[in-house]
């Protein structure tokens, strides 16, 4: 029997201890990526952070920022703009996460099945995916809302329908690249079945790319949803929503600018935070 050589496994990168060295790019990436958690916490805590009820008039209408006890002013019927923005951000953030999660699950499943089966199943699923990719999001949303009635849920359904194909394409691409590696054939010879190969030997390799895409996608989705809500395809009237609040009060732009502009700035802030966080996640997962 051969003499066993001593063996010490080097530690993989992701198991290295987190250092607080601010000069290391990795530290900044971790801080950036934690913005996702911070933003989710703010969204969850919106009822606690808001000074007023966003739906009820609580003071003089159209008070300027800092006047009448309103930090960011009040709107045309005396509701607090800050509270409406916080609630609006909460709605946008969760809506974006829900669509991403849906796209990730449906697209990931379709991509996994297509990529690991190959042949005609792959062709069929990917052509269907292409069909969905060809649909324009706003037009589809208008069509869905027109047929099912205006509702936030319907808008989310419409956006999800056009969103998942991106994930299907990315996951399928990664999976079919992995499927050509000999480790899959080795697993076949080791007696692993189709499902086991797909789940154990293919899927984990496609996840990093999908997670990176998803985290970079949150910002896009916040903007897309705000756009639809600006067009009146979001929640119905009294509900606080950033895009709709901006659109409804556009006529006040030259006199009481804060009423339409503050929700717009909130959208921008949300999108920037999501992009910074997404970039950081990408740097962590895929440092090349």
């Amino acid at each position, binding site marked *: *029997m*051969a003499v066993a*050589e001593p*063996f010490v*496994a080097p530690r993989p990168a992701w198991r290295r201890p987190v250092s607080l060295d601010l000069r290391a790019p990795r530290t900044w990436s971790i801080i950036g990526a934690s913005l996702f958690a911070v933003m989710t916490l703010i969204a969850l805590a919106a009822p606690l952070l808001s000074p007023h009820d966003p739906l009820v008039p609580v003071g003089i209408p159209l008070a300027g920022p800092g006047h009448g006890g309103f930090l960011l002013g009040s709107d045309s019927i005396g509701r607090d703009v800050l509270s409406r923005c916080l609630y609006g951000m909460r709605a946008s953030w969760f809506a974006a996460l829900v669509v991403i999660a849906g796209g990730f699950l449906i697209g990931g499943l379709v991509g996994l099945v297509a990529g690991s089966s190959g042949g005609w199943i792959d062709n069929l699923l990917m052509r269907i995916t292409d069909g969905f990719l060809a649909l324009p999001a706003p037009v589809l949303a208008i069509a869905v809302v027109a047929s099912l009635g205006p509702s936030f849920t319907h808008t989310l359904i419409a956006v999800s329908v056009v969103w998942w194909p991106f994930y299907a394409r990315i996951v399928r691409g990664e999976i079919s690249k992995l499927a050509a590696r000999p480790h899959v054939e080795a697993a076949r*010879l080791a007696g692993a079945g189709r499902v086991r190969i797909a789940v154990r030997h293919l899927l984990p390799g496609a996840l990093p790319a999908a997670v990176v895409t998803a985290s970079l996608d949150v910002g896009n989705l916040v903007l897309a949803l705000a756009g639809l809500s600006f067009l009146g395809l979001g929640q119905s009237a009294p509900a606080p929503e950033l895009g709709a609040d901006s659109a409804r009060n556009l006529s006040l732009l030259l006199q009481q600018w804060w009423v339409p502009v503050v929700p717009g700035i909130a959208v921008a802030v949300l999108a920037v935070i999501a992009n910074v966080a997404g970039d950081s996640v990408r740097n962590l997962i895929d440092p090349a």
Partner: protein
Amino acid sequence: MSAQLAPEDVLTDEGYAVVATAEDLHVTFRRNGKAIHALRGISLEIRRGEILGLVGESGSGKSVLGLTLLGLHGAGATISGRATVRGRDMVSATDAERREVRIAHLGAVFQDPMTSLNPTMRVGRQVAEAAGSDEEALRLLRLVGVPEAESRMSAFPHELSGGLRQRVMIAMAVAGNPDLVIADEPTTALDVTVQAQVLRLLRTLRDELGCSVLMITHDLGVAAQIADRVAVMYAGRLAELGESDAVLRNSAHPYTLGLMRSRLTLGVDRSRALPALAGEVPSPAAPQPGCAFSPRCSVAGPDCVETSPEPVEVEPGHHSACLRPLAVVRRTDTMGPAVLTARAEPARIDQDTAALSLRSVVKTFGVGKGFGRKRTLHALRGVSLQIAQGESVALVGESGSGKSTLLRVAAGLEAADSGEVELSGGSRPQMVFQDSGASLTPWMTVEQILGERVRDLGRAARAAKVREALSLVGLPAEVGAARATQLSGGQRQRVCLARATIVPPPVLLCDEPTSALDVSLAASVINLIARLRRELGMSVLFVTHDLSVARVVADRIAVMYLGQIVEIGASDRVTSAPLHPYTRSLVSAVPDVGLTPVILPGEPASPLNPPSGCAFHPRCADATESCRDTELGLRLQRVANDDVDRVACINIDLSHVPTPVYITPKGA
């Protein structure tokens, strides 16, 4: 060690004696945040008109030396010392000066001509770019032996075969009559017969043009065949330098001795385990103090760990970097006494039971070329092969011969178009792949990967089984917790063998498992396969392009050409007294110390369009008109009614089997 040369010797155009030098050259670069000490103080000179073979295993720094001489070391590298070409230092020179030196004095040939040629440019234009004019480009293409050079000028790189692409690269390298051509593993990606042609070409060009060649290679046989002097590198330092014959036949450094002894040739003693160097090449990320070879050296003492020996002249013109006196090194057996005396018991072969039989297997692939233009690739054109229980058979052939396809059909990874594949006992064969790293799932631990074959066992039983399998291939149990990327090349191949044998299969299929490994590791993996086969009673089907590997691992060798077996027989007979003209040229193309290869013209024909009759006839020196006959229906014929040897050739006297020459090693 650089000779004392007056500066005018180096600088004048006519009378110079040394083309390039490295003087105490250190190169360190960073990869993934780690400092890689690629060169750690190397001095040598390349003389005018000589071919210097630079030999080393992976990580020895041989390619970095070549790149530094070319001035292509990159901006991130920390360099000290000098690397001069015709007296100009490429380390301290500006980019413009380096380019000037490259244009005036240097040419380069790299391993993979497909990636170093521009795929979007016709080869004529690419050569003309280096040569200056179309006429000159055409002259160069003729010079390097590109047939039908005029029409090839307008071809794109992908339309040429590997051998022709490398010739085009060489044409570009010798454009403008350089003083030095740096060739980095130029033949590693080529088939043996084509490799012999390219080596011959490089030598002829040197004789005709008078340029020097720095031949970087991992293969001692290649160096032996082409080089005037050989420099052996180990861990970024020079181990040995001298005339080829002196270094390779009369080695002075323990490392070179070890390499020469663990090297596989057609003369290795098959009845014993191969002598293998212990341990692995040290990582260039963490160089140890002292002599880098000392942990693997049998004559090393405590002083070797303290001082790093400089090369000293041990014989006239022969330098070695070792603290021990020459007599001690040569007398000592660098392998340790245990290895050489271990006589391997022959494996038990049950000739009456077939473990695997393939009957008239045919396999074609459709090769898509745009819409509607599907072509058929004939990978296997009727192959029959039986492997007895416990027997080991090697499939040998060049690229496109179908040897890997046959293995994949036997494994059940590809279905044959027609023909039968029969496995005794019905249980699946297991396979070991060429790229061991890629055949292990990167995110799974070794324990999870091995455990997959014994999923029906309970957790504790599974863990015990994994430990047992790892120890059988000589790996400690801690490897179970590691992932593939954390293991070295040799360890990965052992893990692959452990996976294949955790439940011993009736047949072990090996697809070039050693061709990606360094010389010193290949021998130990081959020993391991032989031991596993013996202990577990497996049959082995071993695919390789290397006849010397085939001879050692196999009882019988089957030689394939273009989807058919052209010769099969006992491995000693096939390698020492080959019958088929193709086998004869394969045997003579194996590069080795002190042998002049017989060069087979042409390259393997394309399996997209196999020639009529005997597929080998366009390259065969003995071919007659009837070999071309489409109705030939060539099949394997018994030689002298014996059951072992068969050959498919109509020009061979089948009445008697030539006597094999059993090669006995020196001193045995």
